[in-house]
């Protein structure tokens, strides 16, 4: 592989500082960084460094989502893969364009956004809408704040919310029944549109409950990646075991949803679905395991993580029961994201006392 490294180095040297080609240097360097681990050693303490890096951190999230992705191809055909590719290409162009314009390094956070975003869309979403959504998500959800690490909101969810308010028809009424049995979607490109309702939508509109077994296995209409509770749990456990996702957030989020929906079924039995159904149906597991645990937008201190999950649960149950939308995970995560710095600050105030302003 040395020839490759050398030729990349030559290319990087060749383009550096030249008019019009200057931008290519960053891209070449990034390609080199992706393929080869850096051989630099630390120049200041500590002189030993942990083997983990952001690239691997993000790659592990993608690995965690692989089971759900495979399931989406099985249930909805190869079009699911096309949506993911469109998301990566369109969002990647926006991401690279921005970092080049700002003369910054290309960061790895997009690896995750690019795959999480298509998985929270309805399976029939037109490909151009996928592209619009991911571009808006990258620009308005991340780049306006300064890039990965500085964003307040989960970029994938920003893109999803933008699509929800912009294309309400495509985003809220075009659900399809997944394919099951035999090779199912593996032999097909996509599903001819057969409009159907998600389990949560059915409960909100008609008050009927879908069987828990179907919901658990994922043979129900829903977003691309969210249907199969089983595979999501497998992926989520992987993230928790590898310490990429903190177990506190999913636990308190899911626990709080369980507790409040249990309470709600007593008070408003027609509006609040029963706990286990709430847990498995819709995007809750996906949101709790892959979206709420996004380290950048979630609180970082342990106490704040518990509070964060608690509020997420309250919001989700309330939106599902009392708003016009049958699903509330996306909105609650975005809303509570806004408060995570505040929650961290409350923990710090508890631990260290308030900020002491010098006398003037």
């Amino acid at each position, binding site marked *: 592989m040395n020839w490759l490294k050398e030729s990349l180095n030559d290319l990087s040297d060749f383009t550096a500082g030249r008019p019009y080609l200057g931008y290519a240097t960053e891209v070449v360097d990034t390609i080199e960084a992706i393929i080869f681990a850096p051989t630099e050693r630390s120049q200041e303490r500590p002189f030993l460094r942990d083997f983990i890096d952001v690239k691997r951190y993000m790659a592990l999230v993608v690995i965690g989502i692989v089971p759900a992705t495979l399931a989406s191809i099985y249930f909805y055909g190869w079009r699911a893969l096309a949506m993911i590719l469109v998301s990566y290409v369109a969002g990647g162009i926006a991401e690279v364009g921005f970092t080049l314009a700002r003369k910054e390094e290309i960061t790895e956070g997009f690896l995750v956004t690019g795959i999480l975003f298509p998985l929270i869309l309805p399976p029939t979403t*037109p490909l151009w*809408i996928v592209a619009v959504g991911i571009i808006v998500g990258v620009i*308005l959800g991340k780049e*306006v704040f300064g890039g990965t690490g500085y964003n307040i909101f989960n970029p994938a969810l920003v893109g999803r919310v*933008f699509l929800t*308010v*912009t*294309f*309400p028809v*495509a985003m809220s009424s075009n659900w399809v029944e997944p394919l099951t049995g035999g090779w199912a979607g593996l032999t097909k490109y996509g599903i001819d549109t057969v409009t159907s309702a998600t389990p949560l939508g059915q409960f909100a509109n008609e008050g009927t409950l879908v069987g828990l077994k179907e919901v658990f296995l994922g043979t129900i209409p829903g977003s691309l990646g969210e249907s199969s509770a089983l595979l999501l749990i497998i992926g989520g456990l992987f993230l928790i075991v590898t310490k990429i996702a903190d177990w506190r957030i999913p636990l308190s989020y899911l626990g709080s949803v369980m507790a409040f929906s249990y309470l709600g079924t007593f008070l408003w039995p027609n509006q609040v679905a029963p706990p286990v159904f709430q847990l498995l149906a819709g995007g809750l597991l996906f949101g709790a395991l892959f979206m709420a645990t996004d380290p950048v937008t979630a609180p970082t201190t342990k106490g704040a993580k518990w509070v964060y999950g608690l509020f997420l649960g309250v919001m989700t149950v309330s939106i599902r029961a009392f708003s016009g939308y049958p699903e509330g995970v996306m909105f609650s995560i975005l809303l509570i994201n806004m408060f995570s710095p505040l929650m961290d600050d409350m923990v710090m105030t508890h631990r260290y006392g308030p900020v002491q302003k010098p006398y003037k």
Partner: protein
Amino acid sequence: MNNTTEIFVNGLWRDNPVFRQILGLCITLAITNRVVNGVTMGVAVFFVLVASSFIVSVIGEYVPRRVRIPVYMLIIATFVTLVYMFLRAYFTGLSQALGAYVGLIITNCIILGRLESFSSENGPWESVVDAAGISAGFAAALIAMSVVRELLGFGTLFGINVLGSGWTPWVSMILAPGGFLVLGLLVWIERSISPVEEG
């Protein structure tokens, strides 16, 4: 560049009320989902601002300091009501689309601010040129925003379909959130072209 041009360009670009001073947002966000609305509102504000600037610059020195704001308000309100009645009488459809926002021109801080900061201290000619520049800047901002919003939100411009019948409307662009997004993006672009000098 002579003085007159400078005053005009200042209002149109460097002191653009929407993009630079971030004023008049209520109207800007509410009515810019169609270009026709933007143009009408631009013309209405142009008329009100130029006329009241002229009058204020003429009578300014006779008005006691302590009652100047009520006097300005009266003058503005008179012209706004004129515009409102005129629109209702001769452009019923437009007046319905603009709704209460024509009346709200009265409280638009662009106008009061200009009267207070410029017209009351300058001669009639400069005041009219400044008013024209500012309101041209306002109109330009409204049109820029409404072009984006109508194009994406309806696929049309001035009500004429330009993006083909297969266009899926971007509903959020028609709503206030889309207004905020477009405003933010345009402010961003404007400031990237000519950065704000601080200090």
